[in-house]
């Protein structure tokens, strides 16, 4: 949020109220145990698929792409549902995503400059 936006929306008091509403909504929107169990089942199935793909004898490039997509799916499901970023205040998502993007940048630059390879 820019300073102008912050002022337009009423400063700290409005932000405070916004936070209250967000917290209340967050608590209400949490999934139930059944939904958590269903997500757990999907995660277990994806892990099974990952291991199966490993033994399928695909070309290395295809294997890497498939595994990265499946891994990213699992990662996102845990972060969005189990860590509640899907339902939580956007400020928490910002904190995490900024760190994640920074890590991804360092990762990419290091591999690109020193010559590491993934595929």
């Amino acid at each position, binding site marked *: 949020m820019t300073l102008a936006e912050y002022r337009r929306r009423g400063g*700290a008091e409005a*932000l*405070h*109220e*916004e*936070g*209250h509403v*967000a*917290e209340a909504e967050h*608590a209400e929107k*949490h*999934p*139930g*145990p059944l939904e*958590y*169990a269903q*997500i*757990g089942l999907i*995660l*277990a199935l994806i*892990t099974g698929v*990952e*291991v199966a793909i*490993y033994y399928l004898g695909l070309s290395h490039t295809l*294997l*890497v792409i498939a*595994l*990265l997509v*499946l*891994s990213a799916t*699992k*990662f996102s499901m*845990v*972060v969005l*549902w*189990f*860590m*509640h970023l899907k339902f939580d*205040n956007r*400020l*928490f998502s910002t*904190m*995490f*995503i*900024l*760190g*994640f993007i*920074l*890590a*991804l940048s*360092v*990762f990419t630059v*290091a*591999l690109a400059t*020193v*010559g*590491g*390879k*993934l595929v």
Partner: protein
Amino acid sequence: MAQAAGTAHLETSTGLDNRKLLMWLFLGSECLFFGSLIAAYLLYRDRSVTGPYPGDLFDIPFTSVSAFVLLMSSVSMVLALAAIQRGNVRGMQIWLLTTAVLGLLFLSGQAFEFTEFNHEGLSLSTNLFGTTFFVLTGFHGAHVTIGVLILLSLFTVSLQGRIQQKDSLNVELAGLYWHFVDIVWIVIFTLVYLIQP
């Protein structure tokens, strides 16, 4: 005291709990920490002059079971949080203990794997693969160990009746840390074990 801690976030300028904000900031910084270790591993894993090499040692079926165990511990952790948010203290205790046991099972698997690798001639100083592998997985194991200690502390405190529905944020913070440890392993399992040079 516990009640005061549980409602302290209402006094912040954002209306959000500062402890939760700090936890997310910490997890963001941990992304950078593990991202660097994984990058170092990928850079050096196939630059070893002498063996053993990753392909000689990795036992994919065994590691898959370990990965599955840690993934299921995330499910039990979130069920512990769901239980306490509904005021079910007994349910939370059962799921917390289940999560800690699954975490210990994962650590036992890692200790077994490290011992096996050591018997095969791989140590921290054998080659670049050994150094980067043990540093990366060792730091992850240390994080899991800290997580297990946090879970067992929460369990002990809850047995004394000091965790009620209003204190669910304590369980949520422990859960955030635990799920982060799980997502790091999701990445390690794919990039280190399944994708080999």
